[in-house]
């Protein structure tokens, strides 16, 4: 059973390699670092077989017909022209049936994966997922670890091989949390909490971003995900608890104002002051900073600035 699966995976990775070579670089979605992104990559590759087949069939028929039935082709036969042909129920039934079958073949794994993605990843089921509140504000990300009582801004530490349960919310505009190498995105909204399960199996630094347009600072609303081993993660937690300052409400309100901020770490969370995913706190930020959108950041791309850069 396992070797069969391995064989299947090898074939899959063969296709992935092909696609990667085609474009001449590593493609994030095809280079997953965790089980969620991997399951989505596999579904995409599965669909690519059908897509490839459809394109092949349509292109072949198209090419042959366009060449063969040109009016000015030499050697045209009288039998090559049937202007009265108006339809054929059997043939038409076939090309209704084939797309129906393709849609069924695509629907089954899609629906299964849709349901699967709403649950913690199967591979780490023995362990409770790590809960992280991810809050988007114009134009930055706050990550609160309620159990560890830690808050980070624009960067994130996670242990590998453990499910991460993101509780998504936004302080104002609808944003979307997307870490392509760990898995697909979900919206973060004010007044509604969404849950997104992701997991990293490989240690490394991954790029995350807000993928849904939220205004002027949108392009700069990126963050780094540091996936580290369990030990290293615990060390980091201890280190932060001892050495980093607490996040006061005053400081939090200040950071919430529209603008860009650097990466930061605090030894307490903002969840005591505001839970933007709850109905009571949906206007927390707008009440405080709603009058600041008249002024623009005047955000230019200074040469050398790279919003996607991952520090080594």
């Amino acid at each position, binding site marked *: 059973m396992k070797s069969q699966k391995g064989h299947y995976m090898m074939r899959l990775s063969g296709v992935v390699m092909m696609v990667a070579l085609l474009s001449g670089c590593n493609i994030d979605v095809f280079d997953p670092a965790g089980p969620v992104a991997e399951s989505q990559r596999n579904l995409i590759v599965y669909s690519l077989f059908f897509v490839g087949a459809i394109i092949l069939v349509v292109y072949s028929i198209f090419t042959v017909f366009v060449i063969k039935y040109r009016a000015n082709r030499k050697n045209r036969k009288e039998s090559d022209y049937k202007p009265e042909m108006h339809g054929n129920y059997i043939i038409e039934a076939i090309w209704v049936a084939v797309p129906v079958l393709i849609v069924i073949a695509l629907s089954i794994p899609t629906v299964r994966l849709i349901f699967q993605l709403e649950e913690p990843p199967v591979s780490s089921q023995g362990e409770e997922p790590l809960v992280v509140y991810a809050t988007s504000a114009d134009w930055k990300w706050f990550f609160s670890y309620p159990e560890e009582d830690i808050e980070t801004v624009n960067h994130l530490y996670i242990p590998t091989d453990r499910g991460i349960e993101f509780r998504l919310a936004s302080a104002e505009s609808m944003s979307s949390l997307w870490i392509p190498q760990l898995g697909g995105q979900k919206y973060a909204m004010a007044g509604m909490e969404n849950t997104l399960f992701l997991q990293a199996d490989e240690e490394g630094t991954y790029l995350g971003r807000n993928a849904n347009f939220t205004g002027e600072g949108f*392009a700069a609303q990126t963050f780094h995900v540091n996936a580290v081993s369990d030990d290293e993660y615990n060390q980091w937690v201890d280190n932060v608890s001892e050495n980093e300052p607490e996040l006061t409400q005053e400081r939090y309100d200040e950071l919430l104002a529209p603008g860009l901020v650097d990466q930061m770490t605090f030894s307490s969370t903002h969840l005591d002051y505001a839970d933007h995913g709850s109905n009571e706190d949906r206007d927390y930020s707008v009440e405080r900073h709603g009058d600041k959108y008249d002024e623009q950041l005047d955000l230019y791309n200074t040469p050398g600035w790279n919003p996607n850069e991952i520090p080594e």
Partner: protein
Amino acid sequence: MQLDEFFVTGEPLIYIGMAAIVLVSGTILFVLTYFKKWKWLWAEWLTTVDHKKIGVMYILLSLAMMFRAGVDAMMMRLQLAFPDMNFLNSQHYSEVFTTHGTIMILFVAMPFLIGLMNYVVPLQIGARDFAFPFVNALSFWSTFFGAMLFNISFVIGGAPDAGWTNYAPLAGSELSPGPGINYYLLGLQLSGIGTLATGINLMVTILRMRAPGMSLFKMPIFTWSTLITSFIIIFAFPILTVALALMTIDRIFGSHIFTLTGEGLPMMWANLFWMWGHPEVYIVILPAFGIFSEIISAFAQKQLFGYKTMVWAIILIAGLSFVVWVHHFFTMGAGAFVNSIFSITTMAIAIPTGVKIFNWLATIYKSKIIFGTPMMWSLAFIPSFTIGGVTGVMLGMAAADYQFHNSYFLVSHFHYVLIPGTIFACFAGLIYWFPKMFGFQLNRKLNIWAFWLFLIGFHVTFFPQYFLGLDGMARRLFTIGPEWFTLNFISTAGAFVMGAGFAVFVYCIVYSYFKSTRDLPGDVWGVGRTLEWATPTPVPKYNFATLPDVKSHDALIDMKEDGETTFDEDKLESIHMPNYTGQPFIMTAIMFFASFFLVFEWITLASIGLIGIIVMMYVRSFDYDGGYHIGVDEISKIENSLRGHDNE
């Protein structure tokens, strides 16, 4: 309000825009005055109710808007190819992609197709005009003024900057203060009136004014697609109207329908927007399918394969278009069950669409393909659109969509359906029916240049974007990191080739105006199958002197066999025509000013405008103009002189 708050200041590019506007308007005013054309403009165009002239004006509007939104596209591509050059800053980039998207959908795709429908549909069904010529003029002018209102935003007050989807709460008055979003809301509202009225007008025209013998299943396929489209318009546009009105009330009068404060429902905007927005996509694609069907069957010199299946496919697509809107926000967290249902309905659209693709292929099987320029665009559509279609199915798979959503994969997909689908159809249709409209053909050589430049440029622009999306490049980013430089540069190069293709196309129209031969026969291409080619070229203002009995959906083929024409001297009767009127123009001009005042929230002035509109409605309600008749002798004279060369 200070003058420097009224006009947008401080951006060199916008100063260039202002200079261009002044220069172009100045030139137009000068030319009109110098050649004493003001009276001609008013009497022949601004007051016309003739569906043919209105159709031409729609297409002119669309081409102008295509230029504007195309320049927007070029600016975006330049910025992404050379982010270090700082051609656009973030704010300016947001404005540019917002206007690009909104204009391309609402002021390019729709007016172009509605223009072609305006011109062609009455001719295809043997009608004298639309059912409501006055309303038709009103529709055009409201679209025109809606477009103008939307377009002046970038010099007066500031352009909208929340994306063409204008999502709440971003587009609310707190997060997007200023007149920009008001321009979006009122510009679309004003033009939406026209679109809805056109939908009703087309539906009544097609259902009530067909030639004798033309039952529904004997209508040409373009007319069928127009009929279905008009149904979609009538069901979908009221949703937009309501959504726009609600947000306008939010922004201008401080209600809390889509706001974060006061328990508003921002997510409701996304639902309402896409309940209109998805059918809207089919409003711009179904007529395109109709155009391709007409052209492919004509230039393949063969009946359309599976005519009835094609019609049912259109009807099915139209029905499904209303039950897939959630796929625009699978990532909103509606739950696994909802996402599964909408995944399946979305993928189901591929079935009738696939059937149509195979029916087109079957149409060219055992045919005699003539490579007229309209046919080249139509043939190029099939392979290009197929890529857009299959990636659409991939996007429909919700679990995979979480990775595609909001990325350049999506951007590439919808350009791959809208450009080969809608834009190719617009070009193909315009070239195909151009001689009917203007009495001369477009130069073939230049057309072929435009075609290849545009086609190759299109693929070079958008194919790399699939890979950018898979590599994590989100849409609407004003700057990018070095890992995406190469593909973005290729994409930009392609965009400029496309731009060159458009330029050649416009040049081709000008060139052909001066160089092409006039005196064309009614069936200009020699391959016409439907009634519009039975009329003489150019079409007389009353369209048909007499009507034949229609026996099949290829009416002209039967007429040729029976030796019939649309000029049967024995059956001639005088024809009742509507009079031209300036009321639609004046009424919508007042609407324009009222909306403009509302954009700046100058309520008193806007109220005066509202009173003006009501006065105009009153005037119209008591207008007893009964039109006039064209006598038999005159028809006889016109037909004989126009048909002289047909009988040679």
